[in-house]
């Protein structure tokens, strides 16, 4: 109940910040000094948010598709040889700092949205891949045996049994990826990508805390709402997969 109220408030606050930023002028004024502007106006907050979300959305979609395909591949007989390597890469790869991955993408890609997209994509692969692997390798053996015994083909088993049952765990991986990407994308503005990081950096450069708080607040609210949306999706899919007993 309280959680629901809190989420509604978060959504309302986010909408207000994006659609009528001027109405918050007096709220942010105490954070400024020397008559600095309290609200970031160089680019509209809404446009930055949309571009931020687009960047994250594209990267997360791409990494989800590639990582799920990869997870399926290494759990098939044809790709099983890659399993030990894939496991090690995912556990070691996740220790790579996202900022360093972003910085390293710049020499290869130049400045702009490109390196940010590549870094988010690469970094986002790991959680989804790891969860896909876990989910596909821990399915109930009796269900798989029954599916084979009833004459489902490999493809039918994958699409009708394995993926639907693995979905909740895969979604948890996508949630992790989405939340990390949302935060990392702000750093993309240091390499000239259009994201909410632009507002924060403008605040850092002009020593205007109002901008820093604005950028941080919007990104934080987005993260909370996306996290929550994914959790709903997960429990819905777990319920559909018959994995959770209704209380």
């Amino acid at each position, binding site marked *: 109940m309280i959680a629901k109220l809190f989420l509604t408030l978060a959504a309302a606050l986010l909408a207000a910040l994006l659609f009528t930023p001027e109405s918050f002028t007096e709220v942010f004024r105490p954070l400024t000094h020397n008559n600095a502007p309290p609200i970031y106006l160089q680019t509209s907050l809404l446009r930055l948010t949309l571009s931020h979300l687009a960047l994250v959305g594209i990267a997360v979609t791409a990494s989800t598709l590639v990582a799920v395909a990869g997870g399926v591949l290494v759990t098939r007989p044809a790709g099983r040889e890659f399993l030990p390597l894939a496991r090690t890469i995912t556990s070691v790869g996740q220790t790579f700092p996202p900022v360093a991955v972003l910085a390293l993408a710049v020499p290869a890609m130049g400045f702009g949205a490109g390196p940010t997209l590549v870094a988010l994509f690469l970094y986002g692969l790991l959680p989804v891949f790891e969860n896909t692997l876990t989910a596909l390798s821990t399915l109930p053996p*009796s*269900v798989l045996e*029954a*599916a084979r*015994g009833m*004459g489902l083909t490999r493809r039918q088993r994958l699409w009708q049994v394995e993926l639907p049952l693995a979905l909740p765990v895969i979604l948890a991986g996508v949630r992790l990826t989405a939340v990390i990407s949302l935060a990392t994308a702000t750093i993309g503005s240091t390499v000239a990508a259009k994201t909410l990081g632009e507002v924060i950096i403008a605040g850092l450069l002009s020593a205007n805390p109002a901008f820093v708080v604005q950028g941080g607040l919007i990104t934080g609210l987005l993260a909370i709402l996306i996290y929550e949306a994914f959790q709903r999706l997960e429990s819905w899919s777990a319920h559909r*997969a*018959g994995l959770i*007993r209704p209380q």
Partner: protein
Amino acid sequence: MIRLDHLSKLYSGRAVVEDVSLTVETGQIAALVGTSGSGKTTLLRMINRLVEPTKGRVWIGDTDAAKIEPHLLRRRIGYAIQGHGLFPHRTVGENIAIVPRLLGWREAEISARIDELMQLFDLDPAVYRDRLPHALSGGQQQRVGVARALAARPELLLMDEPFGALDPVIRAKAQDDLRAIQRQLGTTLVIVTHDMEEAIQLGDRIAVMDKGRLLQFAPPSEILTAPATPFVEALVGAAERPFRLLSLSTVDALREPGEAPGTPINPDTSLREALALCLWEGRAALPVSGGGIVTLAALQARAEGASR
């Protein structure tokens, strides 16, 4: 009819099943019994080609199983396993519909079949059809598992320890139901079990396996009275044997004229139960409903005769 013709399975040179031949007549139940690692499950799985035989053939009617695409073969053969293997994300009705859908039945036909089977297995379609498996009890799940295996009217049903996950009380009931339904449908049934009791209860013939070899393939009474090898004898359990034999016949067989006090027992009661009742209540004779009695002396004589 199903015929296994010199079947062998080798894993890296080691024989798990070695040169097994046997025939199960249409409408009969064959029980494969053995300890774990005896090769009984591998033998069963070679019938629907979940395991490919290294040598030998499987004939289903006049068809060589090796000549059919494995997944098409499996759609013709019912398959039920321990722990039922129901798809947790599909409702009871959808689970039963899996093979008919794969075979391209019409929806109306599938729907009618679901209701028919659920009624046969004592599950009210109005209540259970749209439930997910986890909302069912263990016994109900097991029945749905068997119903699903029978959905496409297979000529042959394979079962691998189908009652293994059930508690003993429900198991006996499930066995009785299975036997009745099998008789009614006339399906040929091959069932794997490690429980000799279950094999005797269900099998028209019992195949005893050990270390990949078929030791004996015979009707239960023959397995009990004339075990082919010491291993078979041990599996049957020498001490238990007379009592097991008693469980094969009913009181009707030993009925003699006379009168005895107490509530009459049903003529279908097994001799074993009758003996147990006599010993338990310390009585010399029991009345049988429809007239006559069965005496403790006759029961004991039958048991001793069997042990010789």
